[in-house]
């Protein structure tokens, strides 16, 4: 992805300073430490999430086919994962990476999400409102820069101690520099951008603000060349062994350096180390001491154009320019100059080969070249910095606003701002602990963010239920219904194939995957069809329960639910044999047989299940009409058997006969039971009608009998059996 391996020249930024140079330069070469003994015959690669590239290095396969498998097996190769974007998504600049470890960078990444999201929502609200006020861009709004300033302060506080307390002590006369936590370049760069691009209140006292900044971060400007901080720090080490400080040239060069950048407190403190202050010298060096003290007083009252001073800082505050000019004239009149060099000093800071990027950034800022600022941020501070600093650069700068928001047709129609957000999101995607904050940044991209978010979500492993839930929550938040459906389907098939049928069905249900649910229902039919009467009932009953009561969702399910009700009822009827439960079961059976959604191949198993019920004595379970219906179904089934597409269910060979027998005897008893029954519909019946009709006529004779006796029934059963056989 763009932005990785930042030392390659940051070609993604339109850095006009060196036209064509970045592209022409040889790309950086990184050696992959895979540990496989050369030669390498073949390399395979695969991008996983974000900037993670898996690299498989294979040795030439042994033509004998690895016949010597065993303890002496030589590895055929190794697979390693390479993070192209730098460890943990930290800044790719070498210095910045040394400063901030992975966990710290993750803290910053997490901490900056709310501030970024808040600023985006404020921007959107202003943009919505600007339709009426007809302001061309959000940055025209008066309150915008204050929002950005608030955002900048929040982010800045994440990067380190927010209060820039004086770095130097004057309390202890023997100590010039206070030992403190090492400042980071990232924080220094952020503050620099804030000073120059955002904080409008600072505009009048910019040089003074720069002095404060230097006090905090001067030590970071270069590693090889002398900074004022290093000069002073070296001098401090020497100080213990010095008898007469004013004889050491470093004392004077340190003084002038500190004075040149306006560190008045340091200057005064150092002046007081002067030998003339020592008690045993006072008498002989009175004049000299008077002069030094006069200088110290003068330095400590140097006019400074700034609203206030932190306690302990020296100088005389002038809030407005006229006051300052007047004070400066007066002060200069007292014999000192030097402040005017301050601005020059900053501008002339020479970039050196090993700088941490701060000097380059300063040069870019002072030359008002947004491209350079952007390129330096990209090169030295990485995707996190660029993405977040973009808001500072555009806060009050029309050119930057235009440059960063212009859609580039050569780059798929996205703007530089969007590009860097995509790049940063990919960095976040590269770590299991940060991928979940990537959506905030992707959703702020107008053109391609959601496309990348969809791919990111679909790439999450579905083996872990917590990750699925997290992914689905993100889908819901960004209204990505089709993605969540896909993820549920993938999770469903995974669990289904891995023996967790219930979880599988649950996810298919969630995804409303009718095709697969129908297939599962069908598989259940087949399963049920094979062993319909045994105790496998329990196994699929739970699954059916899961398939839910939403029987409209899949045709097959409706049947299965009815079938379940029937089976339960049947069991109860067979255990309890109460008239009520028998009646209930019969009703379920008839419903099932009437329902067009009941597949034909289940008719016989259903009836076979019911044989014991049908044979239930003493009274018939089914009415004449019901029995007729079932007989009709049997008839239809025997006709269907002749068709080539008939699917046979494995039932015992006598199944059909036992069903017929049971039905016939039930019919006979029913006829006897139903004296008021009108004509018996015989027209559709073939084979059995003769018998039925005979039974019917026989029953007519016996109709008026007050009670049937068991003997009659037994003989009828025998007769039935004879006829059927």
């Amino acid at each position: 992805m763009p932005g990785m391996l930042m030392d390659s020249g940051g070609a993604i930024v339109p850095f006009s300073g060196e036209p064509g140079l970045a592209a022409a330069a040889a790309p950086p070469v990184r050696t992959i430490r895979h540990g496989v003994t050369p030669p390498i015959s073949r390399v395979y690669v695969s991008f996983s999430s974000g900037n993670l590239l898996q690299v498989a290095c294979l040795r030439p396969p042994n033509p004998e086919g690895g016949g010597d498998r065993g303890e002496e097996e030589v590895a055929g190769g190794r697979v390693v994962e390479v993070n192209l974007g730098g460890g943990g998504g930290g800044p790719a600049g070498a210095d910045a990476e040394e400063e901030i470890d992975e966990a710290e960078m993750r803290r910053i990444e997490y901490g900056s999400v709310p501030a970024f999201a808040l600023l985006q929502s404020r921007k959107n609200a202003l943009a919505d409102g600007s339709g009426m006020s007809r302001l061309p861009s959000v940055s025209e709004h008066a309150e915008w820069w204050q929002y950005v300033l608030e955002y900048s302060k929040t982010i800045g506080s994440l990067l380190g101690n927010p209060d820039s307390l004086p770095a130097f002590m004057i309390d202890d006369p023997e100590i010039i520099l206070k030992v403190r936590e090492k400042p980071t370049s990232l924080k220094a760069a952020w503050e620099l951008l804030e000073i120059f691009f955002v904080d409008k209140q600072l505009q009048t006292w910019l040089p003074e603000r720069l002095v404060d900044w230097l006090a905090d971060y001067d030590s970071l400007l270069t590693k090889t060349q002398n900074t004022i901080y290093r000069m002073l720090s070296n001098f401090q080490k020497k100080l213990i062994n010095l008898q007469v400080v004013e004889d050491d040239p470093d004392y004077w060069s340190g003084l002038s350096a500190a004075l040149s950048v306006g560190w008045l407190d340091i200057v005064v403190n150092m002046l007081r180390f002067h030998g003339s202050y020592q008690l045993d010298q006072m008498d002989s060096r009175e004049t000299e001491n008077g002069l030094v003290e006069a200088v110290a007083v003068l330095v400590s009252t140097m006019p400074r154009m700034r609203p206030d001073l932190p306690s302990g800082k020296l100088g005389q505050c002038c809030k407005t320019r006229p006051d300052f000019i007047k004070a400066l004239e007066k002060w200069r009149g007292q014999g000192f100059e030097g402040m005017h060099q301050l601005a020059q000093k900053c501008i002339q800071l020479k970039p050196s080969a090993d700088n941490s990027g701060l000097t380059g950034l300063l040069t870019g800022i002072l030359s008002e070249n947004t491209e350079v600022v952007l390129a330096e941020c990209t090169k030295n501070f990485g995707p996190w910095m660029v993405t977040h600093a973009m808001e500072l650069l555009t806060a009050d700068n029309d050119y930057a606003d235009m440059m960063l928001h212009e859609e580039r047709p050569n780059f798929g129609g996205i703007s530089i701002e969007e590009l860097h957000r995509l790049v940063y999101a990919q960095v976040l995607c590269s770590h299991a602990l940060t991928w979940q904050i990537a959506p905030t940044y992707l959703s702020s991209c107008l053109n391609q963010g959601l496309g990348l978010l969809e791919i990111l979500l679909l790439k999450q492993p579905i083996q872990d239920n917590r990750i699925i839930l997290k992914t689905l929550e993100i889908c819901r938040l960004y209204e990505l219904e089709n993605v969540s459906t896909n993820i549920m389907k993938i999770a469903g098939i995974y669990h289904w194939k891995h023996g967790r049928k219930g979880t599988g069905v649950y996810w298919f249900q969630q995804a409303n995957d009718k095709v697969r649910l129908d297939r599962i229902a069908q598989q259940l039919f087949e399963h049920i069809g094979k062993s319909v009467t045994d105790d496998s009932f329990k196994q699929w009953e739970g699954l059916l329960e899961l398939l839910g009561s939403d029987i409209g969702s899949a045709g097959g399910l409706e049947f299965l639910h009815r079938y379940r009700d029937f089976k339960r009822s049947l069991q109860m009827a067979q255990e309890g044999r109460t008239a009520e439960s028998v009646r209930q079961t019969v009703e379920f059976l008839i419903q099932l047989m009437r329902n067009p959604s009941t597949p034909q191949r289940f008719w016989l198993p259903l009836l076979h299940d019911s044989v014991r019920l049908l044979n239930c004595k003493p009274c018939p379970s089914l009415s004449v009409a019901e029995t007729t219906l079932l007989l009709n179904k049997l008839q239809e089934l025997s006709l269907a058997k002749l068709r080539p597409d008939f699917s046979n269910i494995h039932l015992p060979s006598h199944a059909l006969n036992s069903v017929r027998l049971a039905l016939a005897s039930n019919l006979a008893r029913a006829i006897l039971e139903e004296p008021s029954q009108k004509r018996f519909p015989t027209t559709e019946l073939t084979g059995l009608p003769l018998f039925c009709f005979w039974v019917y006529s026989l029953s007519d004779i016996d109709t008026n009998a007050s009670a049937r006796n068991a003997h009659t029934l037994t003989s009828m059963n025998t007769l039935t059996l004879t006829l059927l056989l």
Partner: protein
Amino acid sequence: MAERQVAELGAGAACVGWNHCGRRLAAGAVDGFVSVYDSQPSPSSKWQAHEHAILNIVWLPPDYGDAIACVCADGTLSLWEEISEDDQLPTWRKCKVFESGNSHILNVTAYSDGQVKVYELLDSLELDKWQLQAEFQNITDPVSRSGKPTCTSASIAWSPRRGESQQASFAIGFNSDSPNFNSCKIWEFEEAHQRWLPLVELGSPQDKGDIVRAVAWAPNIGRPYEIIAVATCKGIAIWHIGLSAESDGSLSTENVAVLSGHDGEVLQLEWDMGGMTLASTGGDGMVKLWQANLNGVWHEQAVLDCNVSH
């Protein structure tokens, strides 16, 4: 920036394939064995899938479960899926064998007679049941039909579909013993007539005869055009293909870059998830990363050297 070790491959490993999220990988060996790795240096499963060497291993899309396709040196192609019952350890089951294909990705097989066969799954829960959905001649040039060139190798890249509405399409890099017919073509399924149509051929007349080594179709996260990378002996060509047809019905294609850098042939092309970075591997043991800058100019962004052992 240290490399993290993912897997230790056994002796004779010949090819490797990753699943959709890049967390599982399968390796095929010259002795026909397949090993599957799950974030552990040693394989979680290992079995003999074929009698002969395995040339290529591809994971099926996750919609089909955890399943792989193995292309064997004897021309067969087998599909295997991971299943388990209750709390048992997962096992791999052979679902289907397609005979005598010679190159394959997903459910398209390119046959040595130049035919392309597209299979579709009949039952989304069962990987055993496939039906031949279409069969067509990859060479569309009418003159060529009589010649019956024999396909020597082929590579196929399916379009990463973004939604149900988008038509299925794939790019096929095709090589034969008659170099004239070497080409990279895009085929698209036409729903209305239920048939596959050749959309465009990627290549200019002077490129005729170049062997197509690899094809990769970039994920599209919102560009108004598709990007396909095609590797030939001339280097890696980056193609832009317009999403909507021109007035005459044809698709606009533009070769925006030809990238050279590998010493020797390019063996594999792979896009990152945003379709912004292309990784290529070559016979020189190098991995090269390619990107376009804001002006649309493609360049070599970085090189990963795998030839040195530490």
